[in-house]
């Protein structure tokens, strides 16, 4: 990825993004979608339902929450709230990612392209954006996002069709790929404050899960994340006044 700094056209950045996507998050996402397809089959969804979820939701943790709760027979309102809570991260992900992309005339609609924001594309864009010229970042994001999104449907279909014959020793690694991907990406987070937030949120999440399993994510994110920020803010103020 030495070419990142020298790219200066939208199309060049788009192509580089696609390439980065293919070598980076795409294989992981494909594996995750295959695992999701297998799960969808197991809970009795049709292949059309399974692929529609991947295409229109395109958020693996939310998708998994959705089909698991459906299979448990929970109410529509409970499922919607749980999925909405699982997806709150997209707001902060978009808010941290999109301001780094300057607006240009006749750019592809952000209200459409925002659908491509996912853990896969976000992690790589957050890592690579600081190394790039700001005017080509949108192309890079679209490249990574589009290639990953386009792979979501075939991945789901493959997983769905395979699942009848796939034994448990293939299902387990497929189900484990997504959490492991998230965990390993954390080692590439460079800002100490964000590292602290991951650790504090993670540990708090485990504790809160025992007491408020349905709200653990929101409490850990909003509550503990804010506490970490406030602690850092107080530290900075103290240093400033000294």
């Amino acid at each position, binding site marked *: 990825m030495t070419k990142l700094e020298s790219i200066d056209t939208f199309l060049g950045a788009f192509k580089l993004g696609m390439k980065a996507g293919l070598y980076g998050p795409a294989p992981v996402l494909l594996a995750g979608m295959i695992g999701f397809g297998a799960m969808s089959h197991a809970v009795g969804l049709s292949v059309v*339902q399974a692929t529609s979820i991947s295409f229109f939701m395109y958020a693996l943790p*939310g998708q998994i929450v959705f089909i698991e709760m459906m299979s448990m027979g929970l109410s529509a309102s409970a499922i919607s709230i749980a999925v*909405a809570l699982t997806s709150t991260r997209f707001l902060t992900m978009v808010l941290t990612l999109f301001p780094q992309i300057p607006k240009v005339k006749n750019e592809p609609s952000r209200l459409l392209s925002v659908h491509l924001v996912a853990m896969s594309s976000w992690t790589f864009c957050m890592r690579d954006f600081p190394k790039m010229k700001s005017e080509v970042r949108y192309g890079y994001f679209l490249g990574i996002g589009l290639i990953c999104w386009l792979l979501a449907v075939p991945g789901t279909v493959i997983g769905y069709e395979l699942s009848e014959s796939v034994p448990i*020793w293939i299902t387990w690694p497929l189900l484990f*790929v997504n959490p*492991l991907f998230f965990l390993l990406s954390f080692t590439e987070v460079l800002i100490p404050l964000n590292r602290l937030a991951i650790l504090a949120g993670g540990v708090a999440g485990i504790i809160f899960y025992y007491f408020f399993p349905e709200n*653990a994510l929101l409490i850990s994110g909003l509550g503990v994340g804010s506490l970490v*920020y406030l602690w850092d803010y107080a530290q900075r103020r103290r240093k400033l006044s000294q």
Partner: protein
Amino acid sequence: MNSIDSLLPQFGWWWIFIFVVLATYFWRGLGVLIAGHVSQDGEIFKWLSCVTYALVGALTFKLILFPIGQLGEVSITYRIVTCCICLIYMIRFKGRLIPGLILGSLMMMAYGLYISYL
């Protein structure tokens, strides 16, 4: 809330589907609409980063330690050991993401083979 549930039998699965799709898109769309008003270097940006990372951290730890589906059949000790080995590979040996993931997947596969055939 009850009105949503009472509509469920009429519309069935696709009704819930539309709801969860909208619930997912809502946050993405809202992000686009208010993105311009949030300064990248400002305090709000720092706060949002903390909230995002804390939330994704909680989600990840939850998925590993308390998975809802079949992954729960894998011993929790083995799941933690696998994660630790992969993390050590990434940090101590300056490993790359894909090899790290393959390492973890192979360890899960080995566990599955052991349970299935031994």
